[in-house]
């Protein structure tokens, strides 16, 4: 089954609104990374998380290892936030390779 499940799979937002993306893990995730794949295809690292929260500008992310989920909150969405957001987990006992979800495709509309 899916080890890293992302929801929703697609999302459309009006510019200036807020939203939250979620990852649920069926593995014992120890760290989580969030990436944005822009329309050119580049994967940009947004956050590296151990259990806890981090904030960077309009983005805030949390990782709860006990409840096996992570969230990414986008505040005041801008057109340049459009793209596909991936979460990825490194599981206990792993070598360091990441297991990726299938992504959430976000379209921010003017």
């Amino acid at each position, binding site marked *: 089954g899916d080890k890293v499940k992302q929801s929703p799979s697609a999302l459309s937002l009006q510019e200036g609104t807020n939203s939250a993306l979620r990852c649920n893990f069926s593995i014992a995730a120890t760290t989580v990374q969030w*990436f944005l794949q822009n329309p050119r295809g580049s994967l940009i690292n947004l956050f590296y998380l151990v259990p806890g929260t981090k904030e960077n500008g309009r983005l805030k992310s949390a990782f709860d290892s006990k409840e096996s989920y992570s969230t990414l909150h986008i505040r005041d969405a801008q057109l340049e936030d459009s793209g596909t957001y991936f979460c990825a987990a490194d599981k206990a006992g792993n*070598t360091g390779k*990441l297991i*990726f979800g299938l992504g959430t495709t976000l379209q921010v509309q003017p």
Partner: protein
Amino acid sequence: NAGVIQTPRHKVTGKGQEATLWCEPISGHSAVFWYRQTIVQGLEFLTYFRNQAPIDDSGMPKERFSAQMPNQSHSTLKIQSTQPQDSAVYLCASSRQGRDSDYTFGSGTRLLVI
């Protein structure tokens, strides 16, 4: 810091031919990862080097795929006898130490096998 550099950006190869993809990690990063991205499968792990030594190749198709890291400044992924199902974006990433450090991805090589 030029980031992780992958060459070529695009490659078209005929079925049965060989394809070699190159990756230059960020200077000072000891871990290099290769992933493959397709619409159907998403991002799949292929293989991983740390300090140039192969650590985990559990994602590599055994028969036609091989990866090397001859020195700390580059890694190669070679696909022999390419097949149409090998068409994908191949992504290389590096990190400072592998476990417990964040990844930086290159821009990828888009491989098309015709």
